[in-house]
C-alpha cells in the first residue's frame, strides 16, 4: 500500500485555504478535543511522548523545548518561524500557501500547551502571497471563534499576529528572528540565555518551525502512538523533503523519516536527467556537507545522516550531477553567506567575505595552491568563534567538497578545465 501523506494530504486537490473545506477534512477537531477534553499539560505530554523533533533544521524535540519555559509568572510568547530561507528548502511555503489552517491549528495547540500570552508568525518578506493567505485565513478562523477571545467558549484566548520580514536570511536563526520581531536589525544574540528563558521582549519564548507546528494537530487528534508508528524509532513521523537541482521532478515529497535517498530521488523525484550520472547530494540545505553516490541507500533521518557525515537539516535535498562544477557551486554559497552575514562578529563578517573572494579567483583560474590551504584552514577560524552558527555553517559544504572533489579545485588553480567546464569558454 502506498504511504499516505499527512501534512500535505489534499494539497493540489482540495481548496484547503477555505476554512469550510478544511473543517470538512476534520480540521479544527484537534483544537476542539484539546480545549474540551485535555489540559495544557496533557497536550504537552502527548507531544513530548511523540518525540516530535524540530523540522526547522536542528531536530530538537519540541516537547522538550516547551518544557524549558520557566514557570515564573512572566508572560510567555510563541513564535512560529516561517522565515524559510535555507537554500533548497521550500516546504513551509507550500504548507502556508495551501494549508494555512493546519498551521493556525498547530499554533493554537502549541500556545495552549505552553500557556502562551500571544503567538506570532514571522514570515519572510518574499512570501507576500503566503502573508496574504495567512491574514485571510486568520480572519476566517476568528469569525468561526477559533482565534481571539474565549475560543469555542472554553475561556482559552489567543491572538496570532503575522509579522512580515523583509529579506534577511539570518532572521531564520531564532534569536535573529526575535531581534527582528522586536523592531531591530535581525542580529542574533548570544546564548545562553536561550529564548525559553529570555526571548521576545526578554520573556520566556518558544520558537518552532512551520512544519513542526503542523504536526501537532495530528498528534493531538490521533495520539502519540500513531505518530510513533511512522518513520524510525528515533525520528518518528513524516518529513516533507524539498528536492531540487538536477532531477526530473523537483518538488516537495512528504515521506516517512528514514526513507532512503535512493527511493526519494528515483521513485519520487523522477531520477536524474537523461544521460547524467549522480555526483553528489546535499541532504539538508546549503550548509549540509555532501553525500556521495555510495550513500544512496542511506535512510534520511535525524541520526543516520549525521552518522554518514552530513546533516538532515531542513531536508532541502539538492542534487548535483556530472555537469555541475563543485568550485562554482562552492562559490555560489560563499557569495550567499557573505551577503547574509549580519556583520556582528569579525570571523563571520570577514571570513565569509574572504572565502568568497578566494573562491572567485580560484574559479577564474587565478588561484594558488596556497589559497586551497587557506580554505582548508577555515574551520579553526570560523567554527565556534561567533554568536550564531552562520559562520560555522558557511564553510561546512566547502570543507566537504574540498575533501571529495579536491581534483576539481586543483584543476581550477592550474587554470585548466576541471572536467566539467572549460575555463576559457566560461570566462569569455
Amino acid at each position: 500500500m502506498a504511504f499516505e501523506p499527512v501534512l500535505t494530504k489534499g494539497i493540489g486537490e482540495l481548496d484547503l485555504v477555505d476554512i469550510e473545506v478544511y473543517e470538512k477534512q476534520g480540521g479544527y477537531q484537534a483544537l476542539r478535543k484539546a480545549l474540551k477534553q485535555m489540559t495544557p499539560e496533557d497536550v504537552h505530554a502527548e507531544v513530548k511522548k511523540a518525540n516530535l523533533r524540530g523540522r526547522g533544521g536542528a531536530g530538537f524535540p519540541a516537547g522538550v523545548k516547551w518544557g524549558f519555559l520557566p514557570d515564573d509568572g512572566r508572560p510567555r510568547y510563541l513564535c512560529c518561524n516561517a522565515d524559510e530561507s535555507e537554500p533548497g528548502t521550500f516546504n513551509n511555503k507550500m504548507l502556508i500557501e495551501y494549508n494555512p489552517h493546519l498551521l493556525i491549528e498547530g499554533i493554537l495547540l502549541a500556545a495552549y500547551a505552553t500557556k502562551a500570552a500571544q503567538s506570532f508568525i514571522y514570515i519572510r518578506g518574499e512570501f507576500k502571497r503566503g502573508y496574504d493567505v495567512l491574514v485571510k485565513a486568520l480572519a476566517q478562523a476568528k469569525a468561526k471563534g477559533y482565534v481571539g477571545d474565549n475560543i469555542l467558549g472554553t475561556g482559552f484566548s489567543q491572538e496570532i499576529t503575522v509579522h512580515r520580514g523583509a529579506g534577511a536570511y539570518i532572521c531564520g536563526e531564532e534569536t535573529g528572528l526575535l531581534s527582528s520581531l522586536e523592531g531591530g536589525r535581525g542580529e542574533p544574540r548570544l546564548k545562553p540565555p536561550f529564548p525559553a528563558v529570555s526571548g521576545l521582549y526578554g520573556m520566556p519564548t518558544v520558537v518552532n518551525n512551520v512544519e513542526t507546528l503542523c504536526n501537532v494537530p495530528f498528534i493531538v487528534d490521533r495520539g502519540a502512538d500513531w505518530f510513533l508508528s511512522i518513520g524510525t524509532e528515533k525520528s518518528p513521523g513524516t518529513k516533507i523533503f524539498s528536492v531540487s537541482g538536477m532531477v526530473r521532478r523537483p518538488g516537495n515529497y512528504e515521506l516517512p523519516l528514514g526513507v532512503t535517498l535512493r527511493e526519494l530521488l528515483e521513485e519520487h523525484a523522477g531520477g536524474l536527467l537523461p544521460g547524467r550520472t549522480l555526483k553528489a547530494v546535499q541532504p539538508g540545505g546549503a550548509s549540509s556537507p555532501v553525500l556521495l553516490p555510495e550513500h544512496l541507500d542511506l535512510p534520511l533521518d535525524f541520526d543516520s545522516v549525521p552518522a554518514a557525515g552530513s546533516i538532515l537539516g531542513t531536508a532541502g535535498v539538492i542534487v548535483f550531477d556530472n555537469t555541475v562544477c563543485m568550485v562554482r557551486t562552492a562559490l555560489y554559497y560563499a557569495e550567499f553567506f557573505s551577503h547574509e552575514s549580519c556583520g556582528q562578529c569579525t570571523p563571520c563578517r570577514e571570513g565569509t567575505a574572504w572565502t568568497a573572494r578566494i573562491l572567485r579567483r580560484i574559479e577564474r583560474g587565478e588561484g594558488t595552491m596556497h589559497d586551497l590551504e587557506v580554505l582548508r584552514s577555515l574551520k579553526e577560524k570560523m567554527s565556534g568563534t561567533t554568536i550564531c552558527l552562520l559562520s560555522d555553517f558557511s564553510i561546512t559544504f566547502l570543507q566537504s567538497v574540498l575533501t571529495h572533489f579536491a581534483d576539481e579545485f586543483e584543476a581550477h588553480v592550474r587554470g585548466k578545465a576541471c572536467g566539467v567546464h572549460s575555463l576559457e569558454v566560461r570566462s569569455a
Partner: protein
Amino acid sequence: MSTPAWVEKRKQDIEEIIGRYPQKRSAMMPLLHLAQEERGWIADEDVEAIAEILGVSKSLVESVCSFYSLFYRRPMGKYVITVCGNIACGLSGAAELTRYLEQRLGIKVGETTPDGLITLLVTGECIAACDGAPALQVNLEYCGNVTFERADEIIELIKKGEDPAAISDRFGIPPVKAL
C-alpha cells in the same frame, strides 16, 4: 522635511499595526512596509515619520531599514522583477535568464527602464521556489520555470499593466508535480 501623506491617510492602519504588539517598537517593520506600499520605496521623510510615530531616533529607523534587502531606499519601477540567483536557479540557467532580461529590457541589473515601468534585480537569497527553477518574482509574486519565451510573455503582461498576482496565477509553480 514635510510629513508624508500616508501618515494621515493611513492613520487607522497605523494604530491597528501598533495595537498588534505588546511593545510599540515591534511596529517598525510593518510601518516600513506600509510606507513602501504607499510610495514604492522609502524616502527620508518616511524614515523621519516612522521615527516620530515610534518615538525612536531616525538613525535607528535608518539602521533597521538598511539591514533588509526588501526595503528600497531609492525609487523603483512600477514593477520590480527579481531573479533568484541561488543554487537551484543557478543550476537551471538563472544567469542566462538574467542576461536575457537585461538585453530584452535594455537595462542592467539594478536599473529601471527609462519609462519607470520595470526595475530588474537579482537576489542571492534563495526565494524558496527551487521546484520552479529558474524562478523570479514580479513585485514578490512568483513565476516559475521561466524560459526565455515565458519571460517574454511576462514582460508583455507587465506592459499591459497586468496585476502581478494575476501574472503569478498564470506562471506560478504548482504545488504538486505531474507524474
